[in-house]
């Protein structure tokens, strides 16, 4: 079956696969809820303490940062783990001999990424409200584009790490968890970009996440959204997505050329 209906059926098949996977795996559910909640609790109580001692607005900034960082992290993880899981259970060849196109695979995994990030963020926002009276929704509709900008960057990085996993197999698994934390220190997540050394600031500013977190802090402080910053983040997202998709397609063609798929399938 070809055309849009066929494409949708294949995408829905992949989504069904991921839904079954999450429904049947306590570890996956933990991944969505447990670790982000632990992060929120540790940072939340620490910043409450700091807020009383030093700077009351720190609570708001840091809690917002924890919740928003998790949006990026969840989106990236969901995409990469979708493929890694197929390698773990030796199902990857079954997927690659099915008539699934690269865009269909990327769309399905991106939907999973967005769903996971949304679920996680909603849960964390609720907890932050219950524990620290932190109302994320007070930022209003400005939340939506920030959320969206981080999801897009999560997708781009997810494609990048998924490509590395396809190329290097289980040897690259550490990168799934490692790459986001390589980006975190230079994304101005918990502190402004001007804190970074001068030579590192241009690198930080090339990341969409930096503009999101800077913009988020601004919005939390003033209640206004810096549209220019948001537009920069979205423009950089598009570049990252394009590069991520091209890198994935290039790596997949290399993997096909070198015959690594069957090695992955039987690893």
């Amino acid at each position, binding site marked *: *079956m070809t055309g849009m209906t066929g494409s949708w059926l294949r995408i829905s098949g992949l989504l069904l696969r991921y839904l079954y996977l999450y429904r049947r795996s306590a570890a996956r559910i933990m991944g969505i809820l447990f670790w982000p909640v632990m992060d929120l609790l540790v940072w939340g109580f620490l910043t409450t303490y700091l807020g009383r001692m030093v700077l009351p607005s720190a609570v708001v900034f840091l809690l917002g940062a924890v919740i928003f960082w998790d949006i990026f992290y969840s989106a990236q993880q969901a995409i990469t783990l979708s493929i890694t899981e197929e390698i773990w259970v030796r199902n990857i060849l079954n997927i690659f001999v099915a*008539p699934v196109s690269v865009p269909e695979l990327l769309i399905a995994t991106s939907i999973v990424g967005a769903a996971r990030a949304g679920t996680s963020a909603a849960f964390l926002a609720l907890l932050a409200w219950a524990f620290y009276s932190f109302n994320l929704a007070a930022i209003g509709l400005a939340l939506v584009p920030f959320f969206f900008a981080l999801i897009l960057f999560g997708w781009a990085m997810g494609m990048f790490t998924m490509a590395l996993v396809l190329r290097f197999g289980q040897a690259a698994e550490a990168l799934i968890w490692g790459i986001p934390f390589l980006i975190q220190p230079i994304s101005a997540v918990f502190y402004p970009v001007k804190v970074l050394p001068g030579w590192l600031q241009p690198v930080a500013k090339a990341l969409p996440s930096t503009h999101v977190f800077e913009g988020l802090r601004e919005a939390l402080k003033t209640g206004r959204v810096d549209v220019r910053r948001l537009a920069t983040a979205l423009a950089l997202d598009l570049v990252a997505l394009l590069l991520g998709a091209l890198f994935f397609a290039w790596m997949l063609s290399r993997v096909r050329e070198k015959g690594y798929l069957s090695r992955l399938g039987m690893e």
Partner: protein
Amino acid sequence: MIQVENLTKRFGDVVAVDRLSFEVRRGEIFGLLGPNGAGKTTTIQLLLALTTPTSGTARVLGWDVTRQRRRVLQRVNFSSAYIALPSNLTVRQNLKVFARLYGIRKAEERVRELLELFEIPGIADRPTGALSSGQLTRVNLCKAFVNDPEVLFLDEPTASLDPDIAEKVRSMLKRFQRERGVSIVYTSHNMREVEILCDRVLFISRGRSVAQGSPAEVIERANGASLEDIFIAIARDGELRDTAASRE
């Protein structure tokens, strides 16, 4: 159904498939045979577009496998004893996922049909990881037939099965070949099985074609040696010599 011409695949200095040419006709079971490392798996990978050829062409159902990958994959399928379906999903869930991946609208109905066809409706809601080897093989075959393929690639489907179940699987495959006219590319190290099942065979060694024809023709060319002896001779010498003479 399949035309392969001068197909070559190099991995650096290693020539895994070396100017291989053969064809598989409609409705025949074609045995792709040879010792470990001969190039069988790489040949199947090339025919399934999992790997791209260095040179030569492979056409399945008239389409170039590399250029028209999705058209080919829509109408072929694959099963191997060495890959698995997710063990934590039930049989029904696994098959439903694959029915959708092959663009089948009424996935639930198709799954029911397949489970009936392979005489395993009773295990539909059991986790795939809890099945016996025989049941797993049938479930893998259900997956392989999910899109009613015109060409099927089966990589040692009876490996690890007891003789009774292996015989049942062979009978099923023969029945599907007869009733549905499906062409099957079959790899196995069990030469008795190959003799029973395959209409034609291709022996390869070091990526090259060594002998090709019906099992009877190949046996005749080797002066009446059994396929088992031919296999051993090819594994040891890398070519088909006067096998009967070498046995004496």
